[in-house]
């Protein structure tokens, strides 16, 4: 039941905001709806914690330890982002970059996007998963092109075409999956696409077909994860869309796409019973991490910079899932969490920073601590966190990933070392002058909403030095479920 | 330790203090003869000291306490060194306070203080001399250490008394490695004591002087102490050389009654006479090197010491 509420609330929000999105209280409404969703999710989570995983509506929807924590994360970041976007969008509007109508579009699309992601996470049906992913793409296309500038249009177009084509591959993969499942499960009751059923019989599915299916699914959803070399849409979309959108793209959409990939990986690995999928993920992961790191080196635009850093981190996570096994999966899940928290908080500060300096070019941003200490320190700490500096949680996961890699696949560690080292140099040499040094820019008209930033960073910090048992068990259960 | 050893200890120290100027004077006399000048009397150094002690001190206006302390410290370290080196007998209460390496350290202390004092007044010459003297120092020390390595390999100890006793145990042993080491030591000795070919104690030609440049600002009793301690330094080096290479005659532990001590003193004087003459000869035969030839010279010394070492390891003595 509350599962339906979780799905329904954002849809309702989308509807309401489509109607009243242009009003002055739209931003508050947006935040309010997101908060309601968060509460509903909290109830859902409690139920799952109490009674374990559950199925609903003819098994079309289900919640297990893997997706429930992603749902919680999504709801939380969705809420904080809504909080952040309130003052941010106000300022944008004041500066005349957005009209009331655009704001309406923005708000309702934001809610729609959330709805799509919840659907993708909660559905048990691989087909619906695909539909939801497509829906998420479409809604974000509109969000990315919100400013209707040449650059934003170009970014949106590329985003649309690349992800559309990618998602088409995913559909073909899904068809193949269905094709294989049908022989085992038959057509009755439409169970042939239900993940739980597939998971139950994965041993009997035809390996060759699933091998092919996995390739298509990987390429398809991998495009949305932003795995190199399918990543090209990502930096453009992150740089040109409004900052809150960049935050949710990096923080949530990538996770959801990766979630889809992992669901498929579980099935396929079970079927063909070889390390092939794992190896593929590891290769993609390493490639993305290294390429992402080197891309970072030559960035000038602050949001582009952190877009590439998302590619790098998604690479690391994918790599960890590729290694598989309790520790690596655990680390990967942890990294998913801390990355989305940290990255979204960074985008918050970056957005305000570029508003303060009236430019996204990093050479134009200077001496933030002088102008507004909260923004400056927020950016500095966030960057240090994302660079894997303890005691932040990102370090915890990287610690586990590196040590496990050293144990299981030593040959990969040099690449990881290069990736992390280069990324560190690349990001930090840009961030330092932005935060420190002199500047004479005036502070922002609206006081920036940096509470979300520090909440996120606080959680990340806590995960680095102390992990609540509930959370730990939760991760462990999920890790066991992914297996590999 | 018995009163006897203490008496012996003080006796040795006093002897050293007493005859160090004499040794310097003797060398000067030999040099004069070799360069057929009319030689100054042997007592010349003593007269000089006496005169200096009774003069008034002309102290530079902004000389710091460091400057005024230095002569005493120099003298102190040198006397202490004399107390440590077994020049007459090995069984000395002070001998175990510092082994040969610590002895080098002691000399280094003296050098550093002198250099600091030289820089204290802030004249061009002072700091120039200090710089050069420190340079000679850090070039000489590795060579000296290698020499000590040789001694150590033979006796299994860096404590001079043990070295002496080890080598006097089987008399007239000439280990081939010692030959190299001895030459190296001699070269170091010349360099460390500001003698030709590195420095010329008799010069006041400003651009070439090292030691003299440093002591330029000292006067009267300060100068006296500085001079005396440099005499002591030379004497000490000579005694180290004797201990390492010609230990015969030194009264060893146990066998050090009055008679042997007398013999030891005679032996010491004999050695000093010979050594002084030899030094004078070398100095008169060799020409002073340019300051930047010094590295080559001391590298040579180092090389010889290392050769000695290798020879020893090779012949597995």
């Amino acid at each position: 039941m509350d599962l339906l509420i979780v799905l329904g609330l954002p849809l309702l929000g989308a509807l309401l905001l489509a109607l009243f999105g242009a009003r002055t209280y739209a931003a508050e409404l947006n935040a309010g709806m997101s908060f309601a969703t968060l509460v509903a999710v909290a109830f859902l989570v409690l139920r799952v914690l109490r009674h374990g995983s559950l199925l609903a509506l003819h098994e079309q929807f289900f919640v297990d330890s893997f997706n429930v924590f992603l749902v919680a994360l999504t709801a939380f970041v969705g809420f904080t982002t809504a909080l952040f976007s309130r003052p941010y969008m106000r300022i944008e509007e004041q500066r005349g970059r957005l009209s009331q109508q655009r704001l309406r579009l923005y708000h309702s699309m934001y809610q729609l996007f959330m709805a799509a992601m919840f659907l993708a996470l909660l559905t048990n049906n691989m087909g619906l998963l695909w539909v939801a992913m497509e829906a998420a793409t479409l809604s974000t296309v509109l969000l990315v092109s919100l400013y209707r500038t040449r650059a934003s249009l170009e970014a949106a177009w590329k985003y649309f075409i690349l992800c559309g084509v990618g998602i088409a591959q995913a559909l073909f993969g899904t068809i193949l999956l269905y094709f294989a499942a049908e022989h085992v499960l038959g057509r009755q009751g439409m169970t042939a696409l239900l993940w739980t059923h597939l998971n139950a019989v994965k041993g009997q599915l035809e390996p060759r077909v699933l091998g092919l299916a996995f390739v298509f699914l990987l390429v398809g959803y991998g495009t949305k994860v932003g795995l190199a070399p399918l990543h090209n849409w990502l930096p453009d979309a992150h740089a040109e869309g409004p900052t809150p959108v960049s935050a949710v793209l990096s923080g949530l959409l990538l996770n959801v796409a990766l979630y889809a990939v992992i669901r498929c990986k579980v099935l396929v690995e079970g079927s063909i019973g070889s390390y092939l999928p794992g190896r593929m993920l590891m290769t993609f992961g390493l490639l993305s991490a290294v390429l992402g790191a080197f891309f970072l080196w030559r960035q000038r635009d602050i949001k582009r910079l952190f877009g590439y850093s998302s590619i790098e981190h998604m690479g690391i996570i994918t790599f960890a899932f590729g290694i598989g096994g309790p520790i690596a999966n655990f680390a990967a899940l942890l990294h998913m969490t801390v990355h989305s928290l940290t990255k979204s908080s960074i985008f918050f500060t970056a957005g305000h920073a570029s508003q303060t300096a009236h430019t996204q070019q990093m050479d134009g941003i200077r001496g933030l601590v002088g102008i507004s200490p909260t923004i400056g320190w927020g950016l500095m700490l966030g960057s240090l966190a994302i660079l894997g500096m303890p005691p932040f949680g990102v370090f915890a996961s990287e610690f586990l990933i590196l040590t496990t890699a050293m144990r299981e696949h030593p040959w990969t560690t040099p690449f990881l070392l290069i990736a992390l080292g280069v990324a560190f140099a690349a990001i930090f040499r840009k961030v330092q002058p932005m935060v420190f040094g002199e500047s004479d820019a005036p502070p922002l008209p609206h006081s920036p909403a940096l509470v979300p930033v520090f909440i996120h960073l606080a959680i990340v910090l806590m995960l680095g030095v102390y992990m609540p048992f509930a959370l730990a068990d939760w991760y462990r259960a999920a890790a066991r479920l992914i297996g590999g | 330790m018995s009163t006897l050893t203490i008496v012996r200890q003080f006796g040795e120290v006093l002897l050293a203090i007493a005859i160090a100027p004499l040794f310097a004077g003797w060398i000067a006399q030999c040099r004069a003869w070799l360069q057929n000048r009319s030689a100054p009397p042997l007592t010349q150094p003593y007269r000089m000291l006496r005169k200096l002690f009774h003069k008034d001190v002309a102290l530079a206006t902004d000389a710091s306490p460091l400057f005024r302390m230095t002569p005493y410290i120099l003298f102190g370290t040198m006397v202490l060194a004399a107390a440590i080196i077994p020049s007459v007998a090995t069984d000395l209460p002070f001998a175990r306070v510092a082994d040969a390496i610590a002895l080098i350290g002691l000399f280094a202390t003296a050098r550093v203080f002198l250099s600091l004092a030289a820089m204290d007044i802030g004249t061009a010459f002072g700091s120039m001399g200090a710089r050069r003297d420190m340079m000679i120092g850090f070039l000489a020390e590795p060579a000296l250490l290698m020499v000590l390595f040789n001694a150590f390999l033979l006796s299994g100890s860096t404590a001079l008394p043990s070295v002496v006793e080890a080598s006097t145990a089987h008399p007239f042993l000439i280990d081939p490695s010692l030959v190299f080491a001895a030459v190296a030591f001699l070269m170091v000795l010349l360099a460390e004591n500001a003698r030709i070919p590195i420095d010329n104690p008799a010069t006041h030609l400003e651009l070439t002087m090292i030691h003299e440049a440093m002591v330029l600002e000292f006067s009267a009793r300060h100068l006296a102490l500085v001079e005396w301690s440099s005499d002591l330094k030379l004497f000490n080096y000579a005694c180290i050389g004797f201990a390492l290479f010609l230990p015969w005659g030194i009264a060893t532990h146990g066998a050090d009654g009055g008679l042997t001590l007398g013999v030891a003193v005679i032996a010491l004087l004999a050695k000093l006479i010979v050594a002084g003459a030899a030094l004078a000869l070398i100095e008169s035969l060799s020409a002073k090197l340019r300051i930047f030839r010094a590295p080559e010279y001391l590298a040579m010394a180092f090389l010889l010491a290392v050769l000695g070492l290798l020879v020893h390891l090779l012949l597995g003595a």
Partner: protein
Amino acid sequence: MSLAEWTSRYMVALSRHDLSLVLMLVLGWLVLGAAGLIRPHRVGFVAHVLFPLGALAAVGVAFLGAIALLAGHSPQILLLPLGLPNLPFHARLDTLSAFFLLLLGLAGAGISTFAAGYFRSGQGTAPGLLCLQYHVFLASMALVILADDAYFFMVVWETMALSSYFLVTSQHRIPEIRRAGFLYLLMAHIGALCILLSFGVLQGGRWQFTFDAMRGASLTPFWASAAFLLALIGFGAKAGLVPLHVWLPEAHPAAPSPVSALMSGLMLKTAVYGMLRITFDLLHIRYWWWGVLVLGVGLFSALFGAIFAAVQTDMKRLLAYSSIENIGIIFTGIGLAILFAACGLPLFAALALTAALIHSLNHALFKSLLFLATGSVLHATNQRSLGKLGGLIRRMPWVAALALIGTLAIAGLPPLNGFVSEWLLLQSFLFTPQIPHAFLNMLIPLGAALLALTVALAAYVMVKFYGVIFLGQHREPSLVHAHDADWLERIGLAWLALGCIAIGVMPQLALRAAGAVTGTLLGQTVNLSSPFWWIAPIASKQASYSGLILLAGIVGVVGITFVMVRVLAHGRIRRTASWDCGYPWQTSRMQDTAEGFGQPIRHMFGPFFRMERKLPAPTDTAPHYQVHIEDRLWRVLYLPIARGVQRLADWIGLLQGGRLSIYLLYSFLTLIALLVFVL
């Protein structure tokens, strides 16, 4: 009952709860740091309340460390309610950590006291924030020493780097300082990653990141060596071993002087600690070539540091390079220890290790002392360049006198502490001919010569340092207004100077402390039976040294001489101008400059440097001489790496050409490739 009994009983009682007490003090540091944020801009409160308290805590840490060393009981372990699931933070206090705690406390106390007088409000970070960063830095160093599992270790290790980075960049408005900070943090991070990988090799199995598990794990020779090399790179980068030293001469001068003291005096020692921990504790086996490697690197770093220190013209850079030199000496000792241990000569290994440990302690004391002294000079004159100082002994007698002790100590002169450790190291070199390897037993003795050269060079450098700053004439007229340090600073300096003297005249105490460590690490100690003023590490017959008697002797003789001279020669003292060689127009500018003092070194060790000299032409009306010294390694090693990354980045950038068709092509080709792969 008698006082002795009472104290001993008291000690035992204390030593039982050593670890928890230490942790409490560390927590106290953190609390003090946080308290700084209450009134971030109130200098009085921060400086005169918080920092002295921090100093007290440091004394406590030192005291507890000393007790733990004396008690010498089996290590205490404590699990903290923090950390990863299945991996709570483990803290452990054994003799090795106790020794370094002692070091940390002793030096830390002096530095904190000094800092209380030093920090003023002004440009840059607010005092309160500085206080936080400072105490977090101290605490993290203490925790690094106490950590007993890889994760805890890495967390506090990086926290240490981070807090020190913020301290270094406290004057972040100056671009050079930002650059230094960046370089520092980058090197620190890469080093940390290497250490992390080394732990990855050492781990005892899944989730087995505690040091105990690592001790249990058995590695093949290949992996053992891999772990060792990774650790060497990681800790070497932190310690500033050549060629990983480039950050050090930049970062240490950039920081405020107390922080430079902390970094040079203490932080570098945590790297030494880590090296010892992994090599002698976690790894169950050692190979002789490890020792040779460390020895070589150490000797080279030592010589390199000394040579570069000799040509510096900035007093803090000079000290930074001299830190590289001393770290090199310490690692030389470690290398010898590994070599001896691998060759089955535990006694000599113990000797070398003792030398390394004591030198760590000494360096912590005198390097902090000197950095703090430069801090006072900086405050008094606002000058860091040696070329603009001089004659300060007459303006700041206190600082000058205390700095003189530090100078003599670091120059390795008896009867001070620097000499003790160097003497021990040379002693252990004397046994290298006994190594059962042809060539090694002939080559390594030469290392002793190299060491001697380094030590003598250090003396040269220190004469330059002290002479140019404190002696001679003022090179700038403004120096007349220089004022002496205030009382808190003096106390801090005096404390450290006292430490130098104490260890110098009573080396046996340090020897016993180090003995406890070697006893646990190697199961072997040097001879500790001699009385406290006397050391004879192997045998009294073999070699012995007594700082106390030496000092007493010198003082005695000097005293007697002084009295005699007073009695016999009663010449008066006449103040006159210094002798001008008949050229009366001498100015203070005619003194030997720092460059001039470095000239022989430049001349002799030319190949080490990259020199850019600007010589005046004979016709110049205003002749101007300028020389710029640069580290060759920077151009040979680091710039190529940077360029390589840049080039690679440019190539990879071409992937993002902006053409949609090309992007589509990528995904198409990926698809095809994968399909072929699964076919």
